[in-house]
């Protein structure tokens, strides 16, 4: 994302003051500060730059239902992290665990203003539209600011040699075309895979997957292979080996190995009625058993409960892809599948449920 000057980040548009109802309470009602003084430092005493950090106070007076629900949404509390870390044995009643989690894993959390007013904190904040409050402030700054390397770059075709997503390249569909307000605000579920898919390919592509379809490959694979396995246009980003700690000045830091591009088909670790497939795409997420070792011993005692190669839905869909060009573009192609050789020996146990032990054999070629 292009950098924004410090002054641009705090310049309020006249439109906000004249046309936006959110300006009516006055700046100090939400942000605090001192009235009637011109000196910058004095005026900013007691200032709360991110007013929606106190969501009830800033937004809840009018938006009662949404604020109440969004208090426990994945975007605000990162419930996905909490759920996965809990499964890996994190005990959130232990001070060491809470310290590690809140120091390193909640940086991306988003309050109301992070999506509706400002650039996300991950981009160092700043007003997007002169403080006007928008339903969608900016799809690619707001969504892409946080979901950058692993969604935004795939979707827009940033990775060299790999096309972007057909839904963007041909249809220009913004994120909110598929992902709805309810999905962003819904509270209290764990990861996004703990509930039914909020958006499904077949919601729009129903005709393509009907029993009567002429598409033989869909007939054969629809219930056994996730759509992305055939239609992801190419490699997508994986990360590995995250460590956390504090340096000798007490400044928190995170280290990860350089990210790398992968295309790996794994077994489906989250098989259910709504995700019935045997095979899904997987990518390595930035984790390891020693993730929080700086803060205490064995803080993730059941790390192996969750694969570090995680089921994923790359956002680089295309109709024709290298792996669906013919049967044997996929069948018999060992390199496309996640085998034990692809997995770090220390993570073999964690990934038992996704490692493919028998590669689907090559087949006699048939007309697609």
């Amino acid at each position, binding site marked *: 994302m292009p950098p924004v*000057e*410090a*002054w641009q*980040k*705090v*310049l309020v*548009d*006249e439109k906000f*003051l004249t046309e936006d109802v959110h300006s009516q309470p*006055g*700046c*100090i*009602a*939400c942000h605090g500060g001192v*009235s*009637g*003084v*011109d000196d*910058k430092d004095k*005026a900013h005493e007691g200032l709360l730059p991110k007013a929606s*950090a*106190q*969501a*009830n*106070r800033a937004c*809840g*007076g009018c938006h*009662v*239902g949404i*604020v*109440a*629900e969004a*208090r*426990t949404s994945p975007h*605000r*509390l990162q*419930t996905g992290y*909490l*759920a996965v870390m*809990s499964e890996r044995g994190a005990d*959130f009643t232990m001070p060491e665990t809470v310290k590690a989690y809140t120091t390193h894993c909640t940086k991306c959390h988003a309050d109301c203003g992070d999506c509706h007013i400002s650039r996300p904190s991950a981009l*160092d904040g700043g007003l997007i539209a002169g403080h006007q409050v928008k339903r969608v402030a900016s799809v690619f700054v707001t969504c892409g600011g946080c979901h950058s*390397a692993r969604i935004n770059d795939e979707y827009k075709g940033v990775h060299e040699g790999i096309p972007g997503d057909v839904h963007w390249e041909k249809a220009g569909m913004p994120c909110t075309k598929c992902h709805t307000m309810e999905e962003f605000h819904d*509270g*209290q*579920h*764990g990861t996004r895979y*703990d509930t039914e898919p909020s958006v499904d390919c077949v919601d729009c592509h129903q005709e393509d997957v009907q029993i009567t379809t002429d598409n033989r490959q869909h007939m054969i694979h629809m219930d056994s292979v996730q759509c992305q396995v055939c239609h992801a246009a190419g490699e997508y980003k994986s990360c590995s080996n995250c460590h956390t*700690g504090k*340096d000798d000045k007490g*400044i*928190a*830091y*995170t*280290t*990860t*190995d*350089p*990210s790398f591009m992968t295309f790996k088909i794994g077994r489906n670790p989250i098989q259910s009625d709504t995700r019935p497939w045997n095979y899904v795409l997987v990518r390595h997420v*930035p984790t390891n058993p020693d993730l929080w070792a700086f803060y205490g011993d064995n803080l993730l005692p059941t790390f192996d409960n969750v694969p570090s190669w995680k089921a994923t839905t790359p956002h680089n869909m295309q109709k024709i892809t290298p792996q669906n060009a013919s049967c044997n573009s996929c069948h018999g192609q060992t390199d496309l599948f996640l085998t034990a050789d692809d997995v770090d020996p220390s993570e073999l146990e964690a990934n038992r449920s996704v490692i493919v032990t028998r590669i689907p054999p090559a087949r006699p070629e048939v007309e697609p």
Partner: protein
Amino acid sequence: MRLALKPSWVWILLAVCVLAVSVVVVQWVQGDTLLAATAEPHTVAASAPAAEAVLDSTTQQHTLAAVRALAENSTGDELPAADVPSSDNCIACHTNQTLLQELAVEPEKVESELAAGEG
């Protein structure tokens, strides 16, 4: 007929009683409404029966408890002050591009030298 003939102080006493009862009833109704308005965010966030149905394993219940604890601890519950002072000084500066270009500074970014990699 006999009541109508009572001295005027009886009527005054009756009027005072009616007034008192009215005041009590109005206050009770208002109080109940305010209580409902302030309690709603907590009630909705804390119940969510659909989420309970999904979170059935011990681990997930543990997670839910952690989520609730964080939610309760990290949100200010105060309502906006009724009497907010003027924001004229804020507006005068934050709509003045020239002044902001002169005064606005990027907060110093504190980053450890040990940090490495993305994210």
